[in-house]
């Protein structure tokens, strides 16, 4: 069990599964008709394993991460300070001066008999980005699953309904009447758009709307898409509508939005940390960021240069 969790939560394993999905997908697009693999149980199983892996990855990491961010280690060893990618000894600058010139940082301080420690943090929310993204993907997949389970169970799903002009179609508790069908043209005679004017008749409710190629009609969980049209021998127009069940679709959009937010947080919000350790006359400063740090270190360098030159002036 422990081994299984270790395997499922490891990044190497997740990357291997993604690699497999990529391979299968490439093969699936190479052959005409190869897209049957995307509906096959073992392809779905691969996606399932990836979902479980993402879920477990976040579940096992989010609690330690939360704890680490809520109660960070403020008191750190000299060895730790020196091991940080940015580490300097400040000359003539006190901890308080640095603290006052750091803008927008959450600050914590602790004191021992001889030493004062300070930890300044910014962008902690960025650390949750990957987990938010994982969660979003799971919601999205849930939507897909709901669509597969309930959408396909709906007897009207994926049906094509042909309605002659003036007639109506009885669906799940309401009727859809085709009032009018028209085409609009460009100057050169090409079709600009197709418009079907339909009315929903549901008890006392009578609601007329236009259905176009990019503008379907959704009513009571069913969506009607313009699918085709024709003219009968008697000169009467008919329109074919494709009916789709909208089950789970909102989950897909919400999941996609959460995923996007998670991705942006993890890519654009670096978690910056600055430690300062002051004992007697010596002040040490160390910093680390979980993203590319050049600009962050330049920023600290700027603060430090300003404070040190001021200290230097004061001494003269």
């Amino acid at each position, binding site marked *: 069990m422990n081994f299984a969790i270790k395997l499922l939560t490891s*990044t190497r394993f*997740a*990357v291997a599964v*993604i*690699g497999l*999905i*990529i391979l299968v*997908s*490439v093969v*699936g*697009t*190479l052959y*005409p008709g190869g*897209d049957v693999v*995307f509906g096959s149980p073992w392809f779905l199983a691969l996606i399932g394993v990836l979902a479980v892996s993402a879920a477990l990855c976040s579940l096992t990491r989010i609690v330690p*991460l939360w704890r*680490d961010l809520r109660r960070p*280690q403020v*008191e750190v*060893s000299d060895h*730790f300070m020196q*091991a*940080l*990618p940015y580490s300097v000894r400040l000359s003539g600058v006190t901890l308080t001066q640095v603290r006052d010139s750091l803008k927008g940082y959450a600050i914590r301080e602790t004191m021992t008999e001889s030493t004062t420690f300070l930890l300044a943090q910014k962008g902690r929310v960025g*650390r949750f980005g990957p987990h938010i993204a994982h969660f979003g993907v799971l919601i999205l997949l849930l939507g897909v699953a709901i669509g597969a389970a309930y959408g396909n169970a709906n007897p009207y799903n994926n049906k094509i309904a042909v309605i002659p002009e003036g007639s109506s179609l009885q669906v799940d508790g309401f009727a859809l009447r085709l009032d009018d069908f028209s085409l609009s043209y*460009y100057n*050169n005679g*090409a*079709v*600009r*758009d*197709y418009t079907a004017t339909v009315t929903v008749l549901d008890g006392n409710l009578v609601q007329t709307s236009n259905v*176009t*190629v*990019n503008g*379907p009609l959704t009513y009571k969980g069913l*969506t009607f*898409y*313009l*699918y*085709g*049209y024709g003219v009968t021998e008697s000169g009467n127009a008919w329109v074919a509508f*494709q009916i*789709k069940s909208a089950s789970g*679709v909102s989950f*897909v*959009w919400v999941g*996609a*939005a959460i995923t*996007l937010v998670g*991705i942006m947080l993890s*890519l*654009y919000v670096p978690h910056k940390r600055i430690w300062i350790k002051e004992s007697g006359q010596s002040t040490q400063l160390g910093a*680390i*960021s*979980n993203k*590319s*740090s*050049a600009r962050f*270190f330049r920023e600290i360098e700027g603060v430090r240069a300003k404070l040190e030159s001021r200290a230097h002036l004061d001494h003269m």
Partner: protein
Amino acid sequence: MDAAALEHLGFEIALGTYLISSVLFVLYFSIKKRRLAEMGFTLALFGFAFQTLALATRWLYAGYPPWISTYEVISFFAWAAVGGYLILNFKSDYKSAGVLILPLAFVLLGFASMQPTNPAPLIPALQSVWIFIHVPIIILSYCAFVIAFAASMLYLFKDKQLSEAGITEGLNRKSDEGSRDTPPSGTPESTGTLANFSLEQLDDLAYKSVAVGFPLLTIGIITGAIWAESAWGSYWSWDPIETWALITWFVFLIYLHAKTQNWSASLAAYIAAFGFLSAICTFLGVGYVLPFLQTYVSVSTGLHGYAGGGAISGTVLFCGILGAVLVLLFATRKKPPNATRAPPARTDAESEPTP
């Protein structure tokens, strides 16, 4: 002169300029005269201006944005790639990347010139507000991936050069302190063309490009799904273009995970290169497949067309060969002992020092 002729002229000048610029960059890499790169860059700027003129003219007289037909999409992609390259050189000096970008732009424009250029009125399925959002976002993401590809390839070139020169201290090689401020002195002659940037800068540039491209691709795929949902009732139907966009997304997902794990920087460079190839497959797939749309009669036609199953195979084959070449390069490279670690400056929870 009428608008179409003006557009054509701008296009032809850009095509010619990109060709000359490509030649200059290739020459620069063989005889290493800095002036050649400067000239190549100036020409790229010149060609870009003319292509901008051509695209703007077309937008004005066709009445819809220039990213619908195969000809338009491919030219627009070339334009965006060169634009990205120029912006990249605005603040830092990555002119050498022109050796990859300009030939790419030239080939794309050459390919576009073989397509029918007459603007056709928008078919109903393409008349959606999403066409203003979905297409340019996707193209911009590919443009970011082009930059990531160029940075990654330069990284691999430079890594190889340094290994051959016997410099093996890893990513922050002591003798490799090239930057735009300090002209390198004492570096081997062979590194001259790549001396303006360090391995670390290239790795960082590739990462930043992916950090721009990946969210854009995500937005592109989502907007595509929304559009598909509203146009033909299914947010996802595994058509070849959708599938390849997802493959590209997955490849860069691996890249980003590799980065958080501090896996070797050259491995990341290969992944980014693969991601770019995958993007090209997706993109040329769209280019090949879109023309089939014009022959559709059903009103709810697929936006990428379903007739493309066969057409995409040629592109896939081409990219497959390129990919295989990369794999071979990777497998046969000489790995210097304990070299090519990711920069220590970027760490994550699992690899930082513990208090």
